[in-house]
């Protein structure tokens, strides 16, 4: 199913972001530390507890998920865009690698970056707060499936995008609102009914609360449904990304 060249491409994708660690790993850590400091320490005491969890600990799964989603998406979309922009994507397209293999290799690279960023934010939280993980296995499962889903989304956007603006627009107009309205900083029960109903159709709301359940043992949603939604998104986006690559959509003349 996968040729040896596939593993070389995966290696290339992981090496790329590790070499650029100042751009790919540090920003997530710094922004999460600032969120914990500002929202957790400064505002948390005023808000009190949510479902018997301190506000600071309550927002950590959301911060982890924001970092995971953002970095997984950024990795595959920007790596692909660079390869398109500088034309070295052609060096891959002429190899015996199939479109499926190339797309999956990009997704795995993105998943690794999302996962590492997520783990780093969790470790940082453990250092700065009394945050602990309730279910390590389920936490890893969420981090991997959500990284995979948004890594695949990054491949789709990376293939579709004609300019760097397209990549940035998706972050600004899709991920940021969905993250903020996905219950990172509050429980759905704190919202008016209208916004509560709106949040129910936000996939990020389910993913964030799935991770919240895995780490804190509490959440607004069923962890099973959250996991199923994450897996369905991962499979759907991967399939679309693979078809786009195999057909050569916007990458072959």
């Amino acid at each position: 199913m996968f040729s040896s060249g596939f593993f070389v491409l995966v290696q290339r994708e992981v090496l790329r972001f590790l070499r650029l660690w100042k751009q790919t790993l540090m920003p997530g850590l710094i922004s999460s530390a600032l969120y914990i400091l500002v929202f957790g320490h400064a505002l948390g005491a005023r808000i009190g507890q949510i479902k018997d969890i301190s506000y600071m600990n309550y927002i950590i799964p959301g911060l982890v998920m924001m970092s995971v989603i953002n970095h997984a998406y950024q990795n595959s979309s920007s790596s692909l865009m660079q390869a398109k922009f500088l034309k070295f994507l052609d060096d891959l397209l002429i190899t015996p690698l199939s479109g499926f293999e190339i797309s999956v290799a990009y997704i795995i690279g993105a998943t690794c970056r999302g996962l590492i960023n997520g783990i780093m934010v969790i470790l940082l939280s453990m250092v700065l707060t009394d945050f602990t993980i309730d279910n390590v296995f389920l936490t890893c499962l969420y981090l991997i499936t959500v990284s995979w889903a948004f890594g695949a989304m990054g491949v789709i956007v990376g293939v579709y995008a004609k300019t760097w603006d397209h990549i940035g627009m998706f972050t600004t107009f899709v991920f940021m609102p969905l993250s903020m309205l996905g219950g990172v900083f509050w429980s759905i029960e704190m919202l008016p009914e209208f916004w509560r109903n709106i949040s129910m159709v936000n996939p990020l709301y389910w993913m964030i609360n799935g991770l919240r359940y895995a780490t804190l043992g509490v959440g607004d949603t069923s962890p099973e449904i959250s996991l199923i939604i994450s897996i369905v998104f991962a499979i759907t986006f991967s399939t679309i990304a693979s078809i786009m690559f195999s057909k050569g959509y916007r990458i072959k003349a």
Partner: protein
Amino acid sequence: MDQMAIHIDKLTKIYEGGFKALDAIDLDIPKGSFFGLLGPNGAGKTTTIGILTGLVNLTSGSAAAMGKDVVNEFREARSLMGLSPQELNFDVFFSIRQLLILQAGYYGLSKDRGASRADLMLERFGLTEKANNTARELSGGMKRRVQIAKALVHDPPIIILDEPTAGVDIELRHMLWDYLRELNAKGKTILLTTHYIEEAEALCDRVAIIDQGKIVTEGSPQELISTLGTGSIEIKIHDIPAELNLEPWSFSQSENTLHIPTSRPESDMPKIINLLTQLEVSIEEVKICKSSLEDVFLKLTGRSFLEDTMEIKNV
């Protein structure tokens, strides 16, 4: 068919917007040949090799490398080919040595084999000292060498070079020519696209001329020049007789020089000199103007190869 490195059958490519880049072309490139695909910009050369190597989706027809269909058996077909595209492109995150090892790896070479092939390529192209530099840090000529090294690093039996000497200096051009001749002598099939006529004449044992998506002629450069070329012989004579008859050759004259068009100037020259001697004409100077593939292109298309290229460049 077994003897063909590349077999193209009624290959057609129509781009979005309706532009027909290839119009049902047929082409056979024998194993071990040094084949030139000649034509002006926009003729269909890059589209043809793009389809062969997987960069362009074909509209209809088929193409195969060593009998492997480039669509249905793309893994096998692509592993048999190495492409150096016209446009320079580089993965800017890695040194050129790492880049060559990665490229070899994509073709399935082990890490050790890839590293030894990469080192060999660096040495062969005089890039060993630059092995740890990124492509951005190299000069234009060096970038071109890396580009060609990438095409060769997995040691493919078919090497496809799209305008390999575009924009390179004469020294590098001749270095590349020598190396390509050496590879061809070792049995590699080389498909070269170029709009440098002298490059095709110097390197290729067979050429096809493509224009507006159609193969207009094919053969060895010598065959094409002798059958389609328009060379001439110029003879300076002391005093041209008033009623000179050189049949079966026709001629024109300017001052005291005869201009005799012929597709075989070298073989016709002694006969014409003999005829003039019999007519007791005093010959002062004889000059052979050899025909070239440029003349063949001009005759077949009614347009000058170079003029056409210039026109497109100036758009």
